[in-house]
């Protein structure tokens, strides 16, 4: 393990809620630049895993490393500073602020907030570029709450990208989107810088197979399979607990 090039190493991670083991000894290693999908049925522990990775939940046992650094006890904001960003499943935006201001706050986080005077012209310009990149050109001045659901997902992505992360956690990026919107955001994610490490939780298998280099399957808080998309497609157990029920794998 020590010499591995893994950017994220999750070791024997366990999280219990009362008597329920949401995560039960999860071990994962994600290389730099890898695009890893985490799939599994509802309640498999995917969102809990993300919450533990970002530090919004602390694990009952186990450890998390980012670029070799033990971050198990680090706060959420520290992890963000060290390069971890998250696109939330349920949008976490600044509702009354404009799309531009939403993204500018993310851009500004790098320079820190303790700048009492001075304007944010440069940040606004970067924000506009990012908004154009995610397909929100022309919507810069609209309040986040005035955007459509699909647009808000795009904004959510822009906000997480604006942090300039090394690792991007995508929590069901296509949740609630129309097929056309899904296709668009999928291509957008596919076109992101290959150096960016991506962990993605997604129910839409087409999206998963389009984006992932490697897939981990969670079931009842455990990793039951871990491999290249081709292997996972052929895995009998995976098909039993998950794929076989929900989707026809083409």
């Amino acid at each position: 393990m020590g010499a591995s090039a893994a950017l994220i190493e999750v070791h024997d991670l366990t999280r219990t809620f009362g008597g329920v083991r949401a995560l039960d000894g999860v071990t994962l290693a994600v290389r730099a630049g890898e695009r890893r999908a985490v799939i599994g049925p509802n309640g498999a522990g995917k969102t809990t895993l993300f919450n533990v990775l970002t530090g919004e939940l602390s694990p009952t046992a186990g450890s998390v490393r980012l670029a070799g650094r033990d971050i198990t006890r680090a706060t959420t904001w520290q992890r963000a500073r060290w390069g971890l960003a998250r696109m939330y499943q349920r949008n976490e935006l600044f509702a009354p602020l404009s799309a531009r201001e939403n993204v500018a706050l993310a851009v500004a986080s790098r320079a820190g907030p303790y700048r009492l005077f001075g304007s944010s012209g440069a940040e606004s310009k970067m924000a506009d570029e990012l908004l154009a990149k995610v397909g929100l050109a022309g919507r810069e001045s609209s309040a986040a709450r005035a955007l459509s659901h699909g647009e808000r997902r795009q904004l959510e992505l822009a906000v997480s990208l604006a942090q300039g992360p090394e690792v991007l956690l995508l929590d069901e990026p296509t949740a609630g989107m129309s097929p056309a919107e899904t296709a668009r955001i999928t291509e957008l994610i596919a076109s992101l810088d290959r150096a960016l490490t991506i962990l993605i939780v997604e129910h839409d298998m087409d999206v998963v197979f389009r984006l992932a280099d490697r897939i981990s399957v969670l079931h009842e808080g455990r990793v039951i399979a871990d491999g290249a998309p081709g292997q996972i497609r052929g895995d009998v157990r995976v098909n039993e607990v998950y794929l076989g029920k929900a989707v026809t794998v083409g």
Partner: protein
Amino acid sequence: MRRVATWLAIAVAAAGLVAFPYWSAGWESSRFATTVLRDILVFAIFALSLDLLVGFAGMPSLGHAAFFGAGAYAAGIASQRLATSELAVTLAAAAASAALLALVIGALVVRTAGIFFLMLTLAFAQIVFAIAFQWTSVTGGSNGLAGVGRPDLFGIDLSSSERIYVLVAVAFLAIALGLRAIVHSPYGRALVGVRENERRMRALGYDTTRLRLSAFVLAGTIAGIAGALSAYSLRFVSAQDVGIGTSIRGFVMVLIGGAGTLVGPVLGAAIVTYIERVLSSATPVAETVLGLVFIGFVLLARQGLVGIGRAAWAQARR
């Protein structure tokens, strides 16, 4: 061109405000108007500082009087014990005391939000009040701290009521302009971010606890300056300055005027001070009027006068 015109208008208005006691000197009621305006401006500073918390950072403090009072007592005590009337010294003492107190209380309360924050700021401020009330040897207790000296600034005597007014007006303008810059700065935007979505702010890499603490200390320090100005103006510090009544008065000003704006607290300070100073001589139940007005705004116009104004403006433009 229009920008220049705007700034010119502001500069003229500012000069008019600062020079009020001089150009109004011919009026019969000039002296009374000057003291009322002075008190309005002191409370406008206080309300502005509270609005930084309540309106911008989303931290509804009901204990802001603790810092106003700390500043007032510190300025008064410093001038008496250090036997100096140098403004730079007493004002620095006021700001530092308020900042320190805000740091101590803030460290305990900034981890709480919403109603809990409100409750705890209220409770801690009331404890500060009780200490001020009971520590007679230092604060004068229930008799208050009388005979606070009027300051001078590097040899300029500020003891006349006109000059004290000028000091208050200049401080008000400086603080209002400073806050205007701050709320538009990256710092001010970050505070709004914390108000709107603290979870996202943490996920973006902001230490939101520290941000909230910094806002608490900044607002407390400005409130302390307002307290010192009040002590210079009235030459007296009352335990009530620290009391819940003062905290509530500030909160009412912010809410009636419009939280999260810079004009709102100033308007609110003017209205509340007017009700208390002018109406109270006409009716014995000024506080009741104030309470009813406040209830009305909470029920019907939560965005305050500025909100009403904006809605009317939007209506008119349609």
